[in-house]
């Protein structure tokens, strides 16, 4: 296996704090993500990991701090802008469009790139149809990659959980992202499904060079595939470095095993 070339810092999170009324979800978090790497965010439940992704994605607006993406700094992100800049994500609770088929769900990830306007779509004139077919081809390649061909017309809501997670990933991949934010992509999966998902993630990172930011609870997976790890606890950063460094970090061990207070 050729060694991966990890690039410069592509995403830089600085001093992010997030408050909901009286609850402080994130306190002064700073870390960076380098291009082409797999960066994991770990921490006990409620540590603020999903909230962190939500800030990067524009779902939440941080109370303080800034996010720099490819050199441009923002103090809050706009979801559409973020999507246009090439950041895609999956959701912990599977925010799939339950009313649509697998194919339509993944096609919706292509919407950013569809140019034909309302009238052209209504009349279904040549260019509109040609564009639809082009995007369909891309989506079919993703479906092949994720091995979900048999279910492409099935309504997403009827699929088992593991397959739904794949569709979620497919939709994010359809956006051709440079950075992929994965929120617990392997939650609730058995060993085989986890291996499959790991394979997909590594393939995406390998073939397309996509930078991956991964929230995951399975320590084995995290230690195996990550290049670097950030550890959060109670909304604060308590560790940052290579998997080995983090594994032996006392604060991290204490956070997971608990200490007598």
């Amino acid at each position, binding site marked *: 296996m050729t060694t991966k070339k990890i690039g410069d810092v592509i995403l830089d999170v600085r001093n992010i704090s997030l408050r909901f009324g009286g609850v402080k979800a994130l306190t002064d978090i700073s870390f960076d993500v380098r291009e082409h790497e797999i960066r994991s965010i770990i921490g006990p439940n409620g540590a603020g990991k999903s909230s962190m992704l939500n800030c990067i994605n524009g779902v939440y607006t941080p109370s303080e701090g800034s996010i720099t993406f490819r050199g441009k700094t923002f103090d809050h992100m706009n*979801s559409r802008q973020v999507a246009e800049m090439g950041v*895609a994500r999956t959701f912990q609770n599977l925010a799939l*469009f339950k*009313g649509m088929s697998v194919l339509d769900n993944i096609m919706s990830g292509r919407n950013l790139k569809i140019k034909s306007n309302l009238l052209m779509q209504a009349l279904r004139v040549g260019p509109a149809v040609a564009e639809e077919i082009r995007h369909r081809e891309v989506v079919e390649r993703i479906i092949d990659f994720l091995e979900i061909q048999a279910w492409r017309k099935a309504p997403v809501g009827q699929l088992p959980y593991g397959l739904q997670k794949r569709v979620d990933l497919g939709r994010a991949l359809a956006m051709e992202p440079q950075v992929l934010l994965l929120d617990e992509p392997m939650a609730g999966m058995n060993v085989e499904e986890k291996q499959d998902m790991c394979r997909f993630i590594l393939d995406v990172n390998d073939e397309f060079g996509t930078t991956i930011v991964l929230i995951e609870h399975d320590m084995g997976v995290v230690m195996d595939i990550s290049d670097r790890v950030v550890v959060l606890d109670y909304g604060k950063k308590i560790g940052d470095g290579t998997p080995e460094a983090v594994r032996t970090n006392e604060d991290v061990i204490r956070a997971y095993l608990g200490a007598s207070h």
Partner: protein
Amino acid sequence: MFYRENGQFKSNYRADMGLFPVAQDRWAILGLLALAFVLVPLMGSDYFFRAIAIPFLILSLAAIGLNILVGYCGQISLGTGAFMAVGAYAAYNLQARIDGMPLLLALLGGGLVSTVFGVLFGIPSLRIRGLYLAVATLAAQFFTDWFTNRVKWVTNDSSSGSVSVGGLDILGYAIQTPVQKYLLCLAFVVVFALLAKNLVRGAIGREWMAMRDMDVAAAVIGIRPVYAKLSAFAVSSFIVGVAGGLWGFVHLGSWEPAAFGIERSFQLLFMIIIGGLGSIAGAFFGAAFIVLLPLLLNYVPHWLGLPISTATATHVEHMIFGALIVFFLIVEPHGLARLWSTARQKLRLWPFPH
């Protein structure tokens, strides 16, 4: 056995994306169109056209429009009557005030005015949703009720508050008899249904459904909520506005604001709930149901020899509607359309049970 896709292979995506991929469906639709355009005009009675076919067609059109907003985009609207009213009055004003205004342009123009109106009253949907949006659309409904009642300009200063339209014609062909009116409405409905179907299976349709199913996730994949919601309001109110124009011009001939009151809004909402939310075919099912039920309620007791007063019939009608709404929401939220497609699925396997 009969309804099978055996041997119907698609060798390119274009074929797979077609409107009716199953050959039997294609034949069925062609047959239906032949029936509607050729056979029915020859066989139907004037009463049938006036009381059943024309209202059915126009209400189906309005239901398609409403379904785009409520069923596909998930924005609830209790103000549909208002949009129909705007379309009707705008078309009327265009025809009455501009000499030589062709009928088709007047109707489409009415639709355009309704579009502007719809986008305006769709703006609240950018900040509020669900139940709150329902109340906001009530504002549109009551405001329009008042506006068409009080503002004299709208009714061309008619003293009685009602307006009427005279002989209709298109490019010299008169549209006077019920058959002609029926064919006009049929043409409108077929064209608009096709356009609507193209929209909902295209990119914008996916955007609408994404907004309906999970708008936070939709924003994250780069869908602009503003564009998606307002385009749904725009397209929906255009179609509903044209339907309103047709209702006033072709079906009623002369009307007052009460024709487009809140009762109409409820009626259309019921149509799409019973017919099937998020389904173009559902609009037709629902409209058929709503048009036929009162007639049934009037005739069945008659045939059985139990006369009931029209007031009682109305009350029973309300009870049946209400009960059916709850029934459908519990048992089959996707309405008659889903029941129909489930039946077709079973038909594909017939005579095997599964």
